[in-house]
């Protein structure tokens, strides 16, 4: 036994490896540390992967239907909305069936709402772990975002299957769904970082978040087309990058329309700035998270 144990650490004799130097000070600089933080985060990629895998494994372990749930949830939600809205006049403006229309809107939206709700609550459920071991804390909210993204992918495959089943053509423009979802993920990741850091201190977020998400959903073209928005609200309505992205996603996948470049650029810019801001705020609060828990 001993021989095996020894063999496994022979390569780690001192001086063989570069020794990192780290200085811990009371307060971190606001922006200057972002590149270093990202480098450290990259070094912990293994943990990010392991945590994401853990979430995916745990979610459906010891459940009868298992992975079917990832498909059943959006499907059931779609059926509800179809039952409620399909008879309301003016909602079926798209050439495709309303069920597909709702599904295409629900997918990016439920990714947003699942990621934010789970990530905001996630920090507290890792309390014991975080009090014992250091790892870059942003891994916790980010792994929830990644798990939600995985669910999205499964549901997306379902959507594509439904489109083909309905006999509709799949336009090559659907490839635009990828950059759109990348931007959505960046924005949602930023939101999750911010919420999870603040939620530790202000627990009201956990209670208020479902309400806010519910309101946000109806200010985003999820169950109705963007064209249904009254003229006087449009300027405000389309300032929300999520509204643009959800609409673009559906247009690209269902109608085969390429998204407006200006709109996409605007979203990417807002998303990038928001992420940097959220990340540096998160890293500044990071060391206090354990004390507040």
């Amino acid at each position, binding site marked *: *036994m001993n021989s*095996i*144990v*020894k*063999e*496994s*650490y022979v*390569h*780690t*004799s*001192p001086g063989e*490896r570069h*020794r*990192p*130097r*780290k*200085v*811990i*000070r*009371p*307060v*971190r600089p606001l922006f200057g540390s972002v590149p270093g933080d990202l480098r450290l985060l990259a*070094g*912990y990629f*293994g*943990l990010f*992967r*392991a*945590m994401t895998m*853990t979430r995916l*494994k*745990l979610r459906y*372990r*010891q459940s009868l239907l298992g992975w079917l749930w990832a498909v059943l949830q959006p499907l059931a939600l779609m059926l509800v909305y179809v039952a409620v809205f399909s008879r309301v006049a003016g909602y079926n403006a798209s050439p495709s069936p309303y069920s597909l229309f709702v599904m295409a809107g629900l997918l990016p939206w439920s990714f947003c709402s699942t990621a934010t709700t789970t990530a905001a609550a996630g920090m507290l459920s890792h309390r*014991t*772990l*975080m*009090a*014992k*071991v*250091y*790892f870059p804390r942003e891994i916790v909210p980010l792994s929830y975002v990644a798990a939600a993204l995985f669910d999205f992918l499964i549901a997306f495959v379902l959507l594509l299957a439904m489109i083909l089943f309905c006999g509709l053509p799949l336009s090559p423009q659907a490839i635009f769904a990828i950059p759109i979802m990348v931007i959505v993920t960046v924005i949602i990741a930023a939101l999750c970082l911010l919420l999870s850091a603040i939620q530790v201190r202000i627990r009201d977020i956990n209670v208020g978040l479902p309400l806010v998400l519910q309101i946000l959903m109806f200010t985003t073209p999820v169950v109705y087309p963007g064209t249904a928005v009254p003229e006087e609200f449009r300027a405000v309505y389309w300032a929300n990058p999520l509204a643009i992205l959800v609409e673009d996603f559906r247009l690209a996948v269902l109608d085969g329309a390429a998204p407006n470049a200006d709109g996409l650029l605007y979203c990417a810019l807002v998303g990038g700035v928001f992420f940097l801001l959220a990340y540096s705020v998160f890293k500044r609060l990071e*060391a*206090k998270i*354990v*004390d507040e828990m």
Partner: protein
Amino acid sequence: MIDVQVRNVSKCYNLPARGDTSPRLFGFLPRRRTFWALRNVSFEIRRGETLGIVGPNGSGKTTLIRLLSGITAPKTGEIEINGRLASLVEVGAGFQPDLTGRENIFLNGAILGMPYREIARKLPAIVDFAEMNEFLDVPVKQYSSGMFVRLGFAIAAHLSADILLLDEVLAVGDVAFQARCFERIEALRREGKTVLLVSHDLAAVERVCSRALLLRAGRIVLEGDPSEVIEAYHTASFARSTQEAQGPVVTRGLTFDTADGGPVRTGEPLHCCLSYEARETLVDVVVRVSLIWPSGYLCTELSSGQGLRLERGLGQVEFDCPMLTMQRGIYSADVCIERRGNILEWRPRFGLLRVGAGRIIQGDFYLAHSTRARSFSLEASG
């Protein structure tokens, strides 16, 4: 070469003011009081050194470990760390009960900062160290607590860090496993790793560490040779409990030595002397000296038996053991004087028995024995 440099570090926590546990309303922020967990602490750990930190509960040991591992930030001061640091604060903290042992090894290794391939390479060694081959694919929630802890330590013990922080990790597992943990720490030391050990197990600190710090109320009180620091820690702990007692007899001192006055060792004779002062002459007295493991359990005791007579004034009660069979370590001694079931004097943690390595033995006790070899040759029997 200095691996860890701590300069003037202080850390405070905001606690809710006393008696103020009501939930918040808008605008009425809770009143907070400040609790200083560490005040102006400065020290350094040189490369390859094993530093022990001892101190009573609430003296700031855990806060110090948390600061070093980056879990929280100091209020003032600066900490400089040269090298990869890994901390084993509580083994198995990151275990997911629903995942199997194998899955948890990968998850926990990643939490401790090990890359996936390194964990995969070390998996056989980890499993071997934890002695849990057959349970590898069983969910961790079905593990016994011992298995849980063993697996946790096994993962952490195979970290390839330059600096290791160990907080109370030796107090787990059975005797055999603890022995292996010691071996592992020894091996790490021989490799030139820097180790910081925080423990209530004073014997472990004395055995493993090359230097020790004594923390009290967030300050470093003493720094130096482990045995001196432990001695001081003990003496200071007694000082608190030596308020003047009101009973008819008061203990004054307790010493342990060998018959010839040398250091106490396993296998040597032990002489124990308890001095007392009696206000009146007492008869039918029983004097007991209880020797206690570092873990707090009673190890054994010296008892005078029934019917001892203590004369008025100053005096001594002596105990003689022909051979000390206790294993090396540090034991604390409680003293109890009673008469016909009534306790006249009881002094917990009154003295300190330090047993050095004499006859080297494994296990807890030395059994006095003799050995001979007999051979049954074929010719003799045929």
